């Protein structure tokens, strides 16, 4: 038994090392800006989807308003750079502002929206999203209206521009994945999952549900705001329909569901598969709706055939393959296990 666990850990560590190596060397091997562009977008979405998952995936509160934080982060960085006359690479120093703005919006947003559950929560997040999009259009003296805001010029060549943004996006993604894994294993994560399973029972055990949900919502919003800032600097501009894009929310949710909601690797896998596919379809087919139609079709296929996503479904298949032909271990057998064995195991658990 221990041997199997050790083998699994070694295999996981090796896979992780290979993935890390591939991620680091990707822009060196595929240096064409067209290819690194895919990498930058994919990593931005890895961060955004993982951030969404830390709140929605762990707590069960499905948010369709993440674009509020993404767009606000982008606008915050753009407006600050414009009004404070920040230029050159110093503009990256404004990224924490994007995070702070995201978190600052999440607190009042969450205080209202997190009082309700399930469908009502989803509807409220959509409503808030449209309020922010309308504000971006109408507060034109601040947001630039439909013209939007442009980013300061970065003195980089086309190749180095994409390459540097690739590594910035990779750093964001790695930090977010580490945060997500930390949250998953922490008491905070345990509370979030308890809320997802049954909020009333969690409250009954003394969990401060509102506080925990709000903290996760703000954390998720902060990271989304920060990565919105990165996206803005990469794209060099933001307008209301691009900053506050309903397709962004749908894509984030689809990527998480596709990979496996509530897992660490699922959202990463979902973003790495879907975002480049979406970019490829948009670039290949002149009809801009093709990618959206296929996105919708994929969503239906996921819901029908893999409602739990790739990672959990693959896990089930692997377990089934491993245990095929073996007799099922009845739970009663474990219950009847000698007490001494139980005591020995108790030490491990504690």
């Amino acid at each position, binding site marked *: 038994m221990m041997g199997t666990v050790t083998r699994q850990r070694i295999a996981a560590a090796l896979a992780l090392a290979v993935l890390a190596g591939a991620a680091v060397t990707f822009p060196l091997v595929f240096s064409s800006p067209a290819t690194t562009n895919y990498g930058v977008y994919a990593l931005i979405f890895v961060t955004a989807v993982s951030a969404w998952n830390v709140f929605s995936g762990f707590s069960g509160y499905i948010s369709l308003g993440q674009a509020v934080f993404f767009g606000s982060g982008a606008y915050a960085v753009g407006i600050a750079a414009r009004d404070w006359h920040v230029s050159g690479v110093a503009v990256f120093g404004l990224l924490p502002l994007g995070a702070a703005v995201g978190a600052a919006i999440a607190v009042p947003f969450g205080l209202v929206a997190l009082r309700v559950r399930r469908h009502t929560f989803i509807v409220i997040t959509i409503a808030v999203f449209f309020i922010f999009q309308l504000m971006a259009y109408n507060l034109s003296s601040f947001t630039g209206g439909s013209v939007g805001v442009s980013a300061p010029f970065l003195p980089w060549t086309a190749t180095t521009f994409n390459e540097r943004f690739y590594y910035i996006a990779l750093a964001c993604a790695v930090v977010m994945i580490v945060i997500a894994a930390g949250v998953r294993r922490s008491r905070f994560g345990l509370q979030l*999952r308890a809320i*997802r*399973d*049954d909020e009333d029972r969690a409250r009954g055990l003394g969990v401060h549900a509102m506080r925990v949900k709000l903290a996760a919502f703000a954390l998720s919003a902060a990271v989304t705001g920060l990565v919105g800032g990165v996206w803005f600097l990469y794209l060099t501009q933001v307008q209301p329909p691009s900053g506050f894009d309903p397709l962004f929310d749908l894509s984030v949710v689809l990527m998480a569901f596709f990979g496996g909601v509530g897992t660490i690797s699922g959202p990463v896998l979902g973003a790495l598969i879907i975002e480049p596919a979406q970019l490829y379809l948009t670039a290949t087919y002149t009809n801009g709706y093709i990618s959206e139609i296929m996105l919708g079709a994929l969503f239906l296929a996921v819901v029908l055939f893999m409602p739990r996503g790739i990672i959990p479904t693959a896990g089930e298949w692997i377990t089934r393959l491993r245990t095929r032909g073996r007799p099922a271990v009845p739970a009663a057998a*474990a*219950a009847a296990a000698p007490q001494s064995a139980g005591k020995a*195991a*108790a030490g491990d*658990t*504690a």
Partner: protein
Amino acid sequence: MTGPGTAARPVLTIDNLVAGYGGGDVLRGVHLDVAEGGITCVVGPNGAGKSTLMAAISGLLRPRLGSIMLAGENLAGRSPRQILRLGVVHVPQNHSLFRDMTVTENIELGGYTLADRATRARRMAAVFEVFPQIAGWARQKAGSLSGGQQRLVEFARALMLEPRLLLLDEPSMGLAPRVLRDVFGAIRQMNQAGTTILLVEQNARAGLRLSSHGVVMENGQVRLSGSGREVLENPEIGALYLGGAV
């Protein structure tokens, strides 16, 4: 065995408790003592107010009148979280585990209000000492356990707070007779480990046999109280509530 409130110090004293849902009163002036270190079993016909009594003690239902004194503190009007912090842990009638979490995670959540990691680890070890059989299922998802096993894990989770008073609301509900023995055995184990228990039980005979004190409720009031044996052997009560003479 002594009668309630006569020898053992009461850990909980309920006085003239009135509570109910909507406009009506379910509890109509309940007086009750729960002796420290014992098992007090509340029996009575359906609608007598047994589960309502549990809800009122644990703060899920706000009393309209009366007091619920736990070692000098009045619980009436406090929130479930405050009452939990005072050491009253309620294991509800229906299964209450988080089905998608492992057994260990479920038990850990029982100690959620404990800030100190070392204390949590010590309590966890102590819980597994009381219920060593649970260690065998520690990594299983709670939803994959049988009804009886889930009950034991619920008990273990409740013990994480080293409760001053453990409220068990019909722990035998929906369980097969063979499993019942294990569940009642577990209740005895917890009591022997020092936990004071207030038990509401439909299976009145089994509940009273297990208990040091018995209370019979009828129409939202305490009809009779005494030692578990006294209540069990009372011919009137036997005929009324226990299905004939015992």
